[in-house]
């Protein structure tokens, strides 16, 4: 019952909020809508997780994987852009499924920004990392089998991450999708995009196997 009420509220409240915002902020309505979409697209996964029965071990596993990917972001701070966060999110998704991947990704964004600073980019990071984890979970079979596919996925997710984050930059700055600014933003972020892609590939290729082995061992030892 409670579940249905919350879903009902969601179905009514969410469009209402988005609509009101769009009317209130005519100059920035696209920025507002994209902001809401990023934030709200996390909600269904979050709510589903809240409402179903989750074992304590799984709960704490997600917490650990999140903490580990944030640890990775902190450990590799000296090298800008070169971070194992996406790789950790993907690995989590491969071994524990889409939902765990999405949660680890989006929670890593929230938590690491307690260190690196919260901002309007937080919801977009939540969404980007979350969705990268979710897709990896859906493709778990082939990605686990082929290292080439894994590398391609890593590279693509580096690009996708940049592409998604820059949409916000443009919408917020201009109030509409200014294509020339978008390309300029993508171009100026190119070195970073390259580092994201390369670091994802490197981390995935180097970490996927050893960490996968560890996760499998823990899975059998503690009956996860």
């Amino acid at each position, binding site marked *: 019952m409670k579940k249905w009420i919350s879903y009902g509220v969601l179905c009514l409240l969410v469009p209402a909020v988005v609509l009101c915002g769009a009317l209130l902020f005519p100059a920035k309505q696209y920025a507002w809508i994209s902001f809401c979409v990023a934030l709200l697209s996390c909600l269904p996964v979050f709510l589903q997780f809240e409402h179903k029965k989750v074992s304590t071990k799984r709960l704490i596993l997600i917490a650990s994987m999140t903490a580990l990917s944030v640890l990775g972001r902190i450990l590799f701070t000296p090298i800008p852009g070169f971070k194992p966060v996406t790789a950790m999110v993907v690995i989590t998704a491969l071994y524990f499924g889409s939902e765990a991947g999405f949660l680890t990704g989006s929670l890593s964004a929230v938590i690491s920004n307690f260190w690196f600073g919260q901002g309007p980019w937080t919801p977009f990071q939540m969404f980007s990392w979350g969705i990268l984890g979710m897709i990896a979970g859906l493709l778990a079979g082939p990605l686990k089998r082929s290292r080439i596919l894994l590398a391609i996925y890593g590279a693509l997710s580096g690009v996708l991450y940049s592409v998604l984050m820059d949409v916000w930059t443009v919408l917020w700055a201009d109030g509409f999708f200014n294509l020339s600014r978008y390309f300029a933003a993508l171009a100026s972020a190119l070195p970073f995009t390259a580092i994201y892609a390369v670091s994802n590939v490197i981390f995935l290729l180097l970490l996927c196997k*050893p960490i996968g*082995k560890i996760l499998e*061992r823990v899975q059998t030892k503690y009956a996860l």
Partner: protein
Amino acid sequence: MELLQVENLSFRYPKAEQNALEEIGFSVESGEFTLLCGPSGCGKTTLLRLLKKELAPVGEKSGQIIYQGAPQEALEDAGAIGFVQQNPESQIVTDKVWHELAFGLENMGVPTEVIRRRVGEMASFFGIQGWFRQKTDELSGGQKQLLNLASVMVMQPNLLILDEPTSQLDPIAAADFIATLQKINRELGLTILLAEHRLEEVFPIADRVLILEKGRILLDDDPRKIGPRLSELRPNHPMLHALPSAVRIWQGLNIAEPCPLTVREGRDFLERHFTSRAETLPTSEIPEAGETAVELKNVWFRYEKDLPDILRGVSLKVYRGEIFCVLGGNGVGKTTALNVIAGLDRAYRGKVLIGGKPIREYKGSALYRNNLALLPQNPQTVFVKDTVRADLSEILETMEIPKKERAARIQAVADRLGISDLLDRHPYDLSGGEQQKSALAKVLLSEPKILLLDEPTKGIDAFAKQNLREILRELKQDGITVILVTHDVEFAAEAADRCAFVFDGEILSADPPQKFFAENNFYTTAANRMARGLWKNAVTCEQVIACCRAAGGRQ
């Protein structure tokens, strides 16, 4: 009234060939303080976890556990049995002290106002007010374990089960923790079931002792009767070395009188029966000052420019082939001194000479090749691979030992330390003592001339300690210099050639153990505290027993 009854309990882990527990039967009276002990791997943890149904391991179980007259399965309230585990760190769930205290009550669905009160009450009982709003991460190990205890106590249990709660603490924090348990038992009348391997403080306050051996109950008796019954039953049992010093000395002397348990009782006992004819024992000779292996000259160290100095002019010489123990309380700079010698921290003033050469002149990994190695406090920091063998082989690989030779070298070190059958196991599946031996194996493969050990006796039982002592002796015979930092006075007294006392960033004295401890009044072994009125420099139990025998009885 009987609070807990265990009848005919047997347990077998899945895929195991033997039962982990075999026909265990005992009962615990309400208000009793029961001590459970036995060598590691005897089934203590399995038994304790089975008593708490939320933690019961998976496997085949037979027999019955009856709690307050009803089978364990009927117990609804998770707070009724409190459980504290070994590792202070990993039991903490939340990031704030106050939240950790409230965690159990939140789970029970207790309303906020009630939680506020109960948490407040517990915090003041345990003296937590001072750090109530702190982050759990900022606490010391002792504080963390106290917090774990308090956050179980908040749920108002009828039975408190503790699984080696002090094994990861230093002796002072451990003694505080045990004193708190005694307070809970005395003042609140709470029933306690405690598994421990450090028995000096616990033995005297327990009402009853259970000794477990290979999954069976070997003895179940009053603490005063445990010693004599055990030596009668199993004259070579490893547990005999773990008993409190008073009991060990009493046993060595064979006098028909009730067994003493505490230092005070032990001293009275000795003074009733013996008089000192010789003032002191002949002191063992000061080892010949040979070649210097490690030398510190007026070393100063601080972590950051604005922080206080940790080392204030430490000077020290350690000779080749010596076992040198550095003793001292918490935070006096022992471990820092070791890290400076290991080249992990750099002194900002003074000289550090390794093998006569200044430490700065060792470039890259030259300091660690065939020269110096450090075994850190926590052996888990040594392992990075998924089997012990892979970890051992890694270090040989970096030393550029050809592949063919590696297997033989690994086998040799494994045989020496008695870990051959552990090589293909995962490092995390080993017991504390086994982990330590495997870590030591990894360190020894780099063929060091100088071996540094940080708190090597932490978390290992009496048997593993004895084993470590023998290993150190052998290394010494091979000419390896050993410097170890420890809190464990008993171990230092038995193992060291020389002991040094560190306080406030300085080394105050460095002498052979007999001289060293004879000059301390408090910071000395329990055996010495008992006997020092008779023989000032009798330091170990064996020495006290030997003195007594030589002196002969009063009657």
